[in-house]
């Protein structure tokens, strides 16, 4: 034992040294490019710092953060974001799961559908917003045309100008854009389930739903949690699509915290408070991730 350790020590590269050496390129890239901006933005968030008022710039400890508790616009946007995340994540996961289940069956045209499912992934958020704008358009939109021809509405509607309409349709546009990732991950999860399990369940005369609950779902827990983490983060930071589709309106119905942060920093040049907003987003993302991770831990299968 002792001799072995000595031998290891005599090697020119210990495992730890080798491990870090292999990480040098990636670490250099991350540290050089991101560490400084991240540190800087936290430092700025401790300042009163509006670019328009350089004379009033000063260090104020955590006042920006404390002020958030009475910042109505911020609290309201957090609420909008929370609703948005719940709606988008729920619909994405349910829709994605059912698509993955269908795609896991064998049927004619499965290959085609598996390719089609990737289509929305190829669409930049800004273009996604533009596309849905032409679909939801009040005057010439495809949705209006379709519903009218199907006899479901009597006249063209301005879908994005009612409060619920704007919120729900914006969420749906977001869902369409982020669906592929969910389907791929869940489909991948489904494909790892051994066929024998289903055969056994069928022999036991288990119904479709019973089989889903007892065989499929347990195997899907891990991919589902990955999807939940990443989709929650995504929906929480959704910006491009909303920016193009509604700009945050009507009123502040679709003003999410991400949108508000961008406006605070870039339009109002209030980098101090804006950075504080961004750090609250970071903190919430972190808490959500830790929540999911501890769920995974309890399932005994986790290692980052």
């Amino acid at each position, binding site marked *: 034992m002792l001799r072995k350790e000595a031998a290891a020590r005599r090697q020119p590269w210990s495992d730890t040294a080798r491990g870090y050496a292999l990480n040098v390129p*990636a670490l250099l*890239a991350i540290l050089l490019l991101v560490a400084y901006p991240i540190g800087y933005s936290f430092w700025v968030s401790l300042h009163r710092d509006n670019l328009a008022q350089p004379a009033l710039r000063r260090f104020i400890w955590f006042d920006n953060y404390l002020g958030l508790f009475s910042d109505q616009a911020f609290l309201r946007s957090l609420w909008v974001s929370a609703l948005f995340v719940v709606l988008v994540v729920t619909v994405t996961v349910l829709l994605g799961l059912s698509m993955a289940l269908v795609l896991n069956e064998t049927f004619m045209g499965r290959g085609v559908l598996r390719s089609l499912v*990737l289509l929305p992934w190829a669409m930049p958020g800004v273009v996604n917003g533009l596309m849905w*704008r032409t679909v939801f358009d009040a005057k010439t939109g495809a949705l209006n045309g379709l519903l009218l021809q199907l006899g479901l509405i009597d006249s063209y509607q301005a879908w994005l100008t009612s409060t619920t309409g704007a919120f729900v349709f914006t969420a749906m546009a977001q869902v*369409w854009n982020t669906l592929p990732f969910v389907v791929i991950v869940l489909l991948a999860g489904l494909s790892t389930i051994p066929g024998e399990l289903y055969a056994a369940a069928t022999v036991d005369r288990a119904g479709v739903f019973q089989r889903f609950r007892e065989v499929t779902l347990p195997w899907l827990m891990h991919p589902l949690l990955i999807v939940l983490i990443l989709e929650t983060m995504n929906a929480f930071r959704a910006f491009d699509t909303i920016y193009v589709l509604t700009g945050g309106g009507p009123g502040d119905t679709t003003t999410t915290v991400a949108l508000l942060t961008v406006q605070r920093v870039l339009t109002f040049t209030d980098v101090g408070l804006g950075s504080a907003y961004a750090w609250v987003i970071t903190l919430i*993302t972190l808490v959500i991730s830790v929540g999911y991770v501890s769920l995974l831990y309890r399932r005994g299968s986790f290692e980052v």
Partner: protein
Amino acid sequence: MTTTIPLKYRIPWKKIVVYIAAVLFALYLVLPFYWIVAMSFMHEVDAISLPPQWIPQDPTVENYASFVNPEGLQALVGSRAVEETPYALGNSMIVATLTALLNLVLGVFAAYSFSRIRFRGSQALMMLYLLTRMVPGIAIIIPFYLVMRELDLLDTYLALILSYTTFALPVTIWVLKDFFRAVPRELEDAARVDRCGWFRTMWTVVLPISAPGLVAAAVFSFMTAWNEFMFALFLTSTTASKTMPVIAANFATDLNTQFTVMAASGVLAVLPPLVLVLIFQRLIVQGMAAGSVKG
């Protein structure tokens, strides 16, 4: 289960449900995109006609032609976007491709270390990578701009490639590490018996087997770079580096060019990555199956 109908006469409910669902899903995925494709081949009058023309009655390619020859367009604002589209398309391709490659090069070594070497602090290091991803882009955009200005890289490909690499790298490492871990150790041991160094082992044994994972990771970083808007907006200013999302935002906010031209530019913005995912469709799903899912 008291039915007396013999098995072979049972209505194949499951098949029916699967086919109906498949058709509905296909429509859901395709129809919105089909609409802008159809519009991109219409004259402006037809695009805004009521009821909508689901199939262009008088198809035209003049919208696509206008990108090459924008003189024919009447535009007060936004005409710039039309002229800049071909350049932006090229820029996006270059930036996204190079980002994907740089990511793989940087990510492979780090991922290999996490999958094969037990070293002190490896968990903490992985967490550190993932942590950098949790800070929203807007928090770092101003300092990042300052860094790029100081390096004299504003309005160059490199500025975009570097920023997108930092976005995609943590996830790349995360995904790749699981792939490498899935490679049976015996194969590597065999290579080692043949006195291959770790680099040759990785190069000749681990990487080829992990091809689906590499593709999945590359596509992921390609998409990250292709889709990103805000950093592109600030780091670029001319056709030397403007990317498609920046141009698309021009169309959205300063729309004076026609709906149809905007639709055509949207189609162009989607086409290259779409071709990419279609080519690699099988590998992507396979890649995800072997990799991230097993955690």
